[in-house]
């Protein structure tokens, strides 16, 4: 691990992104084997602004799996197939090459063409054309990056996804949603009282969260399409820790009817409340397995807080974490094979992953006050909250610990990230 860290420290890349980013993303480290790719600036008609290739290159670089090559030294800058001279790209060690163009259509729409080429085999891996509104250039760039990522790594990309997080600026809390690269932040709701625990519905159209706006924690569900929101749980005491069932019909929540925090399930419309745990201990932070059959949660029934698993209908719970005296905030990977959580390690709170089958544990982060881990929809990265220079910031680490990113916002605290589902 130390050897790895030393290696990573040589790999420090900072990339400033121009434009309206709420979050600046800095990448620390990268995969052992990065794919060298040349992303040639797109040909464009005057008037088009964002360079799509710049956004594509930033996406690929941020994943840690690609080495995006400097292309300015190459004399020929091709935009279509006949202009490509493969040996020039082989000469700068490129394995893959992307080219393309943006053309303004009558009426102001844009035609974006793009090709992904294999430099060694000298053939085309992908070629697509998009007819888009001018406002969709960044979204299209993310789509192109997703296609490149999937063609070259075999896994789906997550560049078109969104993230939710909470900011605290000058005493005001805001629930925000932004593109996965930190651009296009939008405030979903804001309040002078704390807002915590945002959770995406499986279809990405709604957020559940806990708001203290009525001076006590209440669970709300808000549509991102219409902005309309509903109270899901406002019982006496605390209403917190919402977690969507995989089908989006129900939420696991935590209530304090019986004084202590206990896990319940409730329909997404606030009906059909059912209690799942019956202990005199703390039972909280429920999360469903991807198949909906089980729920992981945190409980201190054995003394300190540890993670347990029970059937999603309730019943006996089995303890699943045994290493250390404080393991909380379970999250399960999309394939159900990896459990991520926060582990106290020598007084520091860090992101750890545990192989569900073998129970083997690995600490992934090297920060100290980590919270709220959240898997990317492809399971490759884990986004989490941490503290950098005394301020709340977001960070991400690859599930193998090799790629690390830091996302910081100017002017306030950022906390409680939640990575949204894959776009359909």
């Amino acid at each position, binding site marked *: 691990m130390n050897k790895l860290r030393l290696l990573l420290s040589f790999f420090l890349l900072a990339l400033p992104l121009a434009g309206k980013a709420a979050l600046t993303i800095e990448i620390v480290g990268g995969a052992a084997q990065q794919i060298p790719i040349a992303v040639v600036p797109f040909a464009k008609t005057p008037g088009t602004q964002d360079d799509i290739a710049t956004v594509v290159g930033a996406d690929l670089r941020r994943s840690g799996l690609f080495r995006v090559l400097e292309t300015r030294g190459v004399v020929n800058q091709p935009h279509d197939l006949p202009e490509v001279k493969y040996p020039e790209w082989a000469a700068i060690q490129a394995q893959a090459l992307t080219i393309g163009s943006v053309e303004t259509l009558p009426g102001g729409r844009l035609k974006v063409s793009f090709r992904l080429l294999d430099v060694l085999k000298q053939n085309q891996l992908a070629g697509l054309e998009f007819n888009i509104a001018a406002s969709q250039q960044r979204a299209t760039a993310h789509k192109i990056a997703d296609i490149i990522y999937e063609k070259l790594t075999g896994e789906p990309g997550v560049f078109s996804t969104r993230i939710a997080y909470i900011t605290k600026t000058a005493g005001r809390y805001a629930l925000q949603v932004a593109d996965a690269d930190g651009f296009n932040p939008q405030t979903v709701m804001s309040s002078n009282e*704390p807002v*915590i*625990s945002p959770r995406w519905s499986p279809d990405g159209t709604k957020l559940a969260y806990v708001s*203290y706006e009525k*001076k*006590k*924690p209440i669970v709300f569900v808000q549509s991102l399409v219409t902005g309309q929101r509903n109270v899901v749980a406002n019982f*006496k*005491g*605390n209403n*917190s*820790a919402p977690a969507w069932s995989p089908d989006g019909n129900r939420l696991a929540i*935590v209530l*304090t009817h019986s*004084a*202590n*925090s206990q896990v319940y399930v409730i329909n997404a419309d606030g009906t059909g409340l059912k209690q799942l745990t019956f202990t005199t201990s*703390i039972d*909280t*932070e429920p999360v469903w397995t991807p198949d909906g059959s089980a729920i992981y949660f*945190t409980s201190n029934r054995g003394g300190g*807080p540890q993670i347990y698993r029970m059937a999603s209908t309730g019943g006996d719970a089995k303890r699943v974490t045994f290493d250390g005296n*404080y393991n*909380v*905030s379970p999250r399960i990977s999309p394939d159900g094979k990896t459990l991520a959580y*926060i582990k*106290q390690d020598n007084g520091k*709170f860090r992101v750890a992953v545990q192989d569900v089958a073998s129970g083997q544990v690995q600490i992934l982060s090297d920060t100290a*006050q980590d*919270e*709220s881990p959240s898997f990317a929809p492809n399971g490759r990265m884990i986004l989490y909250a941490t503290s950098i220079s*005394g301020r709340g910031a977001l960070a991400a680490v690859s599930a193998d610990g090799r790629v690390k990113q830091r996302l910081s916002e100017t002017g306030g605290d950022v*906390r*409680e990230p939640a990575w949204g589902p894959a776009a359909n």
Partner: protein
Amino acid sequence: MNKSLVTSVLLAVMLAACSSKPVKNAPVVEDKSPAQTTTSQSSDSASTSGVQNSSMSVNPLTDPNNILSKRSVYFDFDKDEVKPEYRDLVNAHAKYLVEHPDAKVILQGNTDERGTREYNLALGQRRAVAVKQVLNLQGVSDKQIETISYGEEKPQAAGSDEAAYSKNRRADIVYQGE
């Protein structure tokens, strides 16, 4: 809430003291056993019915010289038991609530920043419940009490050291309408 305060015997004493003496002297009365004060001075309550309009009215819950104005019970690290030094404070609130069955309190549990938000929310809840149990033992009805938790969201002190942490591990007693 106002109605219960106006009928408060305790308040009557305070108001009487207030109208005749500088406010500073009022606390002397309050530093005695509240039980004795209320019973011995109860006849004064009737004569102060008009004082409701006085801008000088003193609410025992907010009078800095009254123990009832003290609202925070502090806890040891990772603990949820009410320490002996806070028994008088909690008992005074219990007495007030028994005497004012219309009064309601929200007990707000809090934690320091270490650990995660949702788990701290649950930990803060245990502290609120610990205070509730003391109130219950003194005869306060469950109907007058709601326990909630702010977890680590509402620190009393900023900072990441024990001095700040010790101020943040607490339960606050908040009366309805405050």
